[in-house]
């Protein structure tokens, strides 16, 4: 009796091992990645690529804030950025200022470049509106602060957000030294005048910012602000010596915002 039970358990154990090994072996043996009939994903044929995307803004080509409006509008329209400060909107309140969503906006020199603050800046620069947006830093503070990896840096240097993953903790907003991020305190949809059906909107409770037009680069288009700038903004690969940004940078003296922080902004300004 004792002996046969022992035997039974042994045989049962070995059988179980054998039966269990079959499906495991099947999974390990099948390497589906080389199967032609399996669905695949790939980049678009026209997609633009770079090692580090960068932007150079020639501020000499702007004289007043009016010059920046078409650029800002082009961006905000493309990306369905709500305008809470639209006075014609039925629910407009001055307090909406607190809820403002900004991807790209004008800033005075003293606020854009506080670390380069000089008591005797020349009149032109003092009066000049600077176009500011997310700097797509080489060493982004927001990416380190994000607890869910909703914000991340892509291989081409773009600091991007996965809105699905954002939990709205706003650590990134505290971490960003440029104020480039905005939080959706309310549903933005009622405040989007002409919705671009090709780009999603955002929902209440997520942070958003400039995405360097990743969706346009993917189909071979330049960012919306570059297109709308009439040649005042150059965009290209910083590591490519033939690119327009490299040429502009080698021919002109440029400044970056708050360089002392070590974030390594990818936005350069010709003053």
């Amino acid at each position, binding site marked *: 009796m004792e002996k046969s039970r022992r035997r039974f358990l042994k045989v049962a154990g070995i059988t179980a091992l054998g039966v269990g090994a079959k499906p495991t072996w099947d999974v390990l043996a099948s390497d589906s990645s080389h199967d032609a009939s399996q*669905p*695949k*994903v790939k*980049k678009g044929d026209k997609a633009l690529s770079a090692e580090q995307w960068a932007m150079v803004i020639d501020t000499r080509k702007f004289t007043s804030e009016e010059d920046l409006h078409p650029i800002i509008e082009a961006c905000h329209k493309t990306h369905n950025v709500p305008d809470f400060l639209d006075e014609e909107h039925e629910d407009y309140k001055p307090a909406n200022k607190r809820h403002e969503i900004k991807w790209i906006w004008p800033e005075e020199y003293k606020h854009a470049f506080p670390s380069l603050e000089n008591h005797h800046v020349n009149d032109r620069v003092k009066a000049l509106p600077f176009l500011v947006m997310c700097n797509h830093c080489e060493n982004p503070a927001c990416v380190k602060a994000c607890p869910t990896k909703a914000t991340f840096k*892509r291989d081409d240097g773009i600091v991007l957000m*996965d809105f699905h993953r954002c939990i709205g903790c706003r650590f990134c907003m505290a971490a960003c030294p440029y104020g480039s991020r905005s939080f959706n305190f309310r549903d933005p949809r009622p405040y989007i005048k002409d919705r671009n059906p090709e780009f999603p909107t*955002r929902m209440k409770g997520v942070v958003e910012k400039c995405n360097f037009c*990743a969706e346009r680069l993917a189909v071979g288009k330049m960012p919306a602000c570059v297109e709308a700038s009439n040649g005042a903004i150059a965009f290209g690969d910083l590591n490519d010596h033939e690119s327009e940004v490299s040429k502009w940078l080698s021919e002109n003296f440029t400044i970056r915002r708050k360089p002392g922080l070590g974030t390594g902004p990818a936005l350069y300004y010709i003053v």
Partner: protein
Amino acid sequence: MPDQKQMYDKGKVVAGLVIFVVLITFPFWYNHLKAAPAPQLELTKKAQAAKNCVRSKDYMKAEHMQLLDVWRESVVRNGERVYVNEEGKEFNMSLTNTCLDCHSNKAEFCDRCHNYASVNPYCWDCHIDNPKEKK
């Protein structure tokens, strides 16, 4: 007979068990042991004309959420935006511009099944909920 096991409070225990079983099976006998009929989906003209979805109908029925999850990861993280299906046909991996372009009838297509399965995905909070349809 010392071996004979005695059940104490037999009446109460059995009554309690009966009540418990009746309560736990409430959803079943309340619906007369019949499942609610599966919803009938309506396809838009565009979807009918296209005949095939990105993948087979059965796959899409069961796995569309996994597919969308893979698409999101691929598009947002890797910048890979083109999907090549088993037949070699290419698609722009976009819920807004590809899926909801054909399936623009949220109420008759998406909602019917989601309501039936009692799931509340919030895709449409950001991705187009057909702007032609006024809410």
